[in-house]
């Protein structure tokens, strides 16, 4: 009996340490990625990288200023499409949603969230690029915008639902109509959460490459207006990494570092905002 107990105990310890090892392995990947990018890309993230245009093929020097601005413009468009649709739908789901229809919308949003990004690219190509006869910032922004919608919907709904019901009831009791209560009480209470949801959605699509390669396309120059092809950081990383020039590889590392830094910073910041918010409201 005691032998059996010892056996069970040792199994216990072995398995528990194995799960710990799994965790360690998984988390160490993060530090590996970060360290490797800093090591390889750090020395090439310099002033030129941020202010210069890419050099012609085979010439050294140049930067990715246009790709950085390009990514920003694409994200702006994505936000213009994704935020209204996402937030209003979130409001509908949290405040009005009928049982069946609400479920249907929520479910569709989840499924849209799971659609491979390359398929979203085909979609944007078919509905924006082909009719407009133009690869454009608009097409890229549309593709990214569609991807932000489901994320924004779910986070908005979640944060609205987290607003205590007594706040709503208090507003209604004071004679406010439902929409006024939503606008003046519920939304402000959830605004930090909704904002972080939007930021997270943007951070996620900021790194998307597949939907951009045949919508936003690429551009070695500054892209003026919204109807021209435009460079973006992820597409530049993709092209430069596959290229045969050592100079391109270095720039790809640098761009990777900048992109990753942006994505992680947004994630960390939103987490900090959220945890502060939660501790305050508690």
């Amino acid at each position, binding site marked *: 009996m005691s032998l059996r107990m010892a056996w069970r105990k040792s199994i216990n310890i072995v398995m528990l340490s194995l799960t710990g090892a799994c965790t360690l392995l998984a988390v160490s990947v993060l530090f590996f990625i970060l360290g490797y990018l800093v090591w390889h890309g750090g020395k090439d993230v310099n002033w030129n990288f941020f202010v210069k245009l890419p050099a012609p093929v085979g010439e050294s020097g140049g930067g990715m200023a246009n790709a950085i601005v390009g990514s920003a413009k694409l994200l702006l468009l994505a936000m213009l499409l994704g935020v209204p649709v996402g937030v209003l739908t979130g409001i509908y789901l949290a405040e009005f949603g009928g049982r069946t229809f609400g479920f249907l919308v929520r479910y569709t949003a989840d499924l849209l969230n799971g659609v491979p990004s390359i398929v979203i690219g085909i979609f944007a190509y078919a509905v924006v690029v082909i009719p407009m006869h133009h690869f454009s910032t608009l097409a890229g922004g549309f593709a990214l915008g569609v991807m932000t919608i489901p994320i924004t919907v779910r986070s908005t709904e979640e944060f609205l639902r987290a607003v205590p019901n007594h706040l709503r009831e208090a507003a209604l009791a004071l004679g406010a109509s439902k929409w006024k209560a939503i*606008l003046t009480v519920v939304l402000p209470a959830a605004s930090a959460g909704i904002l972080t949801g939007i930021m997270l959605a943007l951070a996620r699509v900021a790194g998307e490459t597949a939907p951009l390669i045949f919508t936003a396309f690429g551009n070695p120059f500054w892209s003026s207006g919204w109807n*021209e092809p435009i460079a973006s950081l992820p597409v530049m990383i993709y092209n430069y990494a*596959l290229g045969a020039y050592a100079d391109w590889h270095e720039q790809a590392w640098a761009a990777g570092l900048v992109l990753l830094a942006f994505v992680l910073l947004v994630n960390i910041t939103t987490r900090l905002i959220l945890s502060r918010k939660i501790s305050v409201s508690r």
Partner: protein
Amino acid sequence: MKRLRDFGILVVLLLMGGTAMGQSHDPVNLNAAGATFPYPIYSKWFDEYHKLHSDIQINYQSIGSGGGIQQLKAGTVDFGASDMPLKDELLAQFSFKILQFPTVLGAVMPTYNIPGVSAELKFTPQALADIYLGKVTKWNDSEITSSNPGVSLPGNDIVVVHRSDGSGTTFVWTDYLSKVSSEWKDKVGSNTSVNWPVGLGGKGNEGVSGVVQQTPNSIGYVELIYAIQNHLPYGMVKNSSGKFIKASLATVTAAASGAAAMMQKDIRVSITNASGADAYPICSFTYLLIPVSISDATKRDTIKGFLHWMLASGQGMVEALDYARLPQAVVGIEERQISQIQ
């Protein structure tokens, strides 16, 4: 709520800023896409041309010749570029007429990465076809060793690398293999992308030379400039007169020398496996594909202006990048062709 509103204001301001930035000056933006084979010289040309005319930006994306043809057909670019001259049946798929302008001459060569072998390998047409057909699978196969006496080749498997995208380089390569191997012609044929019997795919000239560089015992085919710039060893190929020729400006020019006469009649000529004792056998013109009628007058003038410049000063830059310049007679033919653009 306040935060949300501030956020909204920020968005509107940014948006207005972005739009204003776009409208402050009125540059001519042309979009083009296509061949990767001439990408280095095109990116040089468009960069230089932008320096000369700061209001003109020609955005060239090297997505492959197949892509250039397809995107021009779909009307998503202003002009295309291809290493494969468009045949009549392909032209019939367009809803508008196309003019084809040869820009430079290039060569495609077998490049390889065999650890321990620094000698320059010699390839017979048969050996190249059989390697790409998957019939020759080891580096020490007699088909390779017989033309390379004195070189000790390893018994390793040959890693065949080809283009994964639709590419004019692939067209030139398969066009050549089709001319020298009837088996290749029947089984595979020639096009911008084909059904490869063996091999790994790399995207673009960059992708192929990248894979070759990173993979021991591999063979790939790339444009001359990529092999030179990346210090990849590349082999000599036996031409139709039985001589092993190394690709160079002189041997490529030699291959094109007979072409001008034919191009009077039809500008689309294949110069692979050209006759001539010093002709390198795997080379070709590369083309810009320009619609005959361009309704936007500014764009039309810009394209015409660029073509004239390309045929004059532009040609002066090509040799520095290891392309062969156009024969003078061909420049004359093209100058006349420019006037057809309306």
